[in-house]
């Protein structure tokens, strides 16, 4: 997947980057190109700023202040540590089935970094790094993945949708929220996150078209982690470059090295500005890799060659960022070590909170069905409560 795209990839200059895959003005010329032998890929823009060795492209470096860099680094480390801890908890029977995000930390943090609190975020089920950044709590996420409905409580002060387990289905409402923003003349943006597998769903295609037609301020982040359970992304779609789905709908698009936190931030920033400025939706394909299991119920040994995983280990988003931070004198190796431990401590403290909060509340299952429960449902609820009583549960 990546090797083919690599050979075609061109690094854009900063100016060029402001007009990747322009669709609007180019509709006619695209049509003309289509008639010729070969489709012009010249305008497909790949963005990479910090390479796998931690070498930065100075011309593109967003040069964020040290305090911001530290905040971003910590969030990435926290994402990874939480992932590791949850996996251990799951293996010890203290956590339900969940979807680890190992290796996708840059994609996760980079896509939400440019959002304000007033913007909206619609996560995937693998987005807990981004959810933490947005203000979801560690204990809340633990509750949620351990089957406690309470974990789905949306934290006060943010506009986020709960993720939907049904692949791609959340993209419809996400575009609708963005259409609402446009109707009201609000200056906010919706950012929606989904996988390469999701890009095959009808609703994703239909919603992208709506976003384009209504110039909805919606940023699509297609997180291409190479796999949809056992299906590699090259078997998921006839088109290798999923980024080309964007221009097909008339949506400005860019492909980004998703393991490069700086590129993710720069691309998302640009996408968000574009949407906020009333220019319509924006589409980002973030190329990354699912290093771990699809979910804790999955066994990738059945379908994938571990040498591919090894290759991606060398592209670790955190390691390259730490090299960059060390070169800049922002964080030393010892600092990183300490931060890792602090994150671990914070997670363990949150696990205690989770353990305390982990009390099933079977009484509430009727409570969020309607504004007011219709009489027939009230009757069912009473019947259900009698059942709980009989079982000795209040």
């Amino acid at each position, binding site marked *: 997947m990546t090797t083919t795209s690599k050979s075609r990839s061109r690094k854009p200059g900063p100016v060029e980057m402001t007009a990747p895959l322009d669709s609007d003005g180019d509709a006619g010329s695209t049509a003309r190109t289509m008639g010729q032998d070969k489709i012009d890929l010249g305008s497909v823009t790949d963005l990479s700023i910090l390479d796998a060795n931690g070498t930065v492209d100075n011309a593109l470096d967003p040069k964020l202040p040290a305090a911001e860099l530290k905040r971003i680094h910590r969030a990435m480390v926290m994402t990874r540590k939480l992932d590791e801890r949850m996996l251990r908890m799951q293996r010890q029977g203290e956590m*339900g*089935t969940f979807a680890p995000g190992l290796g996708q930390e840059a994609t996760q943090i980079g896509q939400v970094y440019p959002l304000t609190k007033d913007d909206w975020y619609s996560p995937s*089920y693998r987005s807990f790094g981004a959810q933490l950044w947005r203000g979801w709590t560690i204990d809340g996420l633990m509750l949620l993945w*351990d*089957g*406690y*409905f309470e974990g789905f409580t949306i934290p006060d002060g943010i506009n986020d949708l709960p993720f*939907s*387990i*049904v*692949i*791609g*289905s959340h993209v419809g409402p996400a575009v609708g929220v963005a259409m609402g923003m446009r109707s009201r003349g609000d200056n906010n943006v919706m950012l929606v996150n989904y996988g390469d*597998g*999701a890009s*095959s*769903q*009808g609703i994703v295609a239909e919603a992208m078209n709506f976003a384009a037609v209504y110039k909805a301020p919606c940023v699509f982040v297609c997180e291409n982690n190479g796999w*949809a*359970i*056992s*299906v590699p992304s090259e*078997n*998921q*779609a006839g088109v290798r470059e999923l980024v080309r789905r964007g221009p097909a709908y008339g949506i400005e698009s860019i492909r980004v090295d998703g393991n490069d936190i700086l590129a993710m931030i720069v691309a998302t920033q640009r996408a968000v500005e574009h949407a906020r400025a009333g220019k319509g939706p924006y589409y980002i394909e973030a190329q990354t890799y699912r290093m771990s299991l699809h979910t804790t*119920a*999955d066994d990738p040994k*059945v*379908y994938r060659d571990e040498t591919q995983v090894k290759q991606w280990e060398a592209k670790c988003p955190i390691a390259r960022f730490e090299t960059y931070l060390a070169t800049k004198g922002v964080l030393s190796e010892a600092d990183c070590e300490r931060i890792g431990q602090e994150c671990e401590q914070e997670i363990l403290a949150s696990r205690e909170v989770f353990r305390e909060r982990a009390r*099933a*509340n*079977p009484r509430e*299952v*009727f409570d969020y*069905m309607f504004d007011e429960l219709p009489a*027939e*449902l009230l009757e*069912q*609820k009473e019947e*259900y409560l009698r*059942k*709980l009583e*009989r*079982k000795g*549960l209040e």
Partner: protein
Amino acid sequence: MAQCTMVEALNLALDQNMAADNDVVVMGEDIGVNGGVFRVTKGLRDKYGELRVLDTPLAENAIIGTAVGMAIYGLKPVAEIQFSGFTMQAFDQIEQNMARLRNRSRGRYTVGMVLRAPYGGGIRAVEHHSESREAYWAHTPGLKCVIPSGPRNARALLHAAINDPDPVVFYEPKAVYRAFREDVPEEPEPIEIGKAEVVREGSDVTMIAYGAMMRPAREAVDDLADLHNVDVELIDLLSISPMDTQTLAESVRKTGRCVVVHEGPRTCGIAAEIIARLNEHAFEFLCAPIRRVTGYDIHFPYFQVEQHYLPDADTIIEAVQETVAWE
């Protein structure tokens, strides 16, 4: 005879039918190289190749839509939807084409295909992985819908479904997938879609259940016999649509009392249909109102509390006792 789990029994039915008929193809998400997330299609890809075992893109509506086309062309597709919750993505093609193409083409084309999907709660799963919405398919004209309860009838029913000239929705109780083993004969057993099975004869009250609910139903029946001196006639419905009204009505004419059990939501559920039919066919024999023990009209709860949602033996026993006590 081999001792099989339901997963193995289903795999056997697929394997034997693929071996016997090159037109049988299986398709779905992660069913090839991975052998299916529940391993029902394990080994088939190696045996029959990628043209007959299709790992599809992640698009249920297209899985069913294209399966319909393959069926029209003469193949016998068995399409897996990874969890029945995602049949909703395919509602469009199920209703518009799978159920209708025979009629729309005035019988020129037939849709001999199977939609397989694991359904039901009880496996500590996340949202949309526990639904029991078979009523949708019973409500859709042009479809058949069957639900096995154990390895042996699962194999027999799947064999019948694959060879049925019309579209069959085949719901598999995932809570039963590996719950127990049964002897499954090497040779396919004939079983007729549309027939219920009286699994225990009794005289006091009829109990009708299917799928995963057969387990708490059996438990309740045993307790009622051992501890409460109530003799239950237990019927495994097996076929949701068409429904074996005759077997159900005969039993109720005998016992005069009836309790229906299912885990799906109550309103317009399968029990509602059964009760309506018994009203039509056994009303004058009834000694008590027919009771239903079902899921509630709410979204399937998160897994820490799912056991309270699902009908259990105690709730079923209580309903039976009330029915038997009615004068």
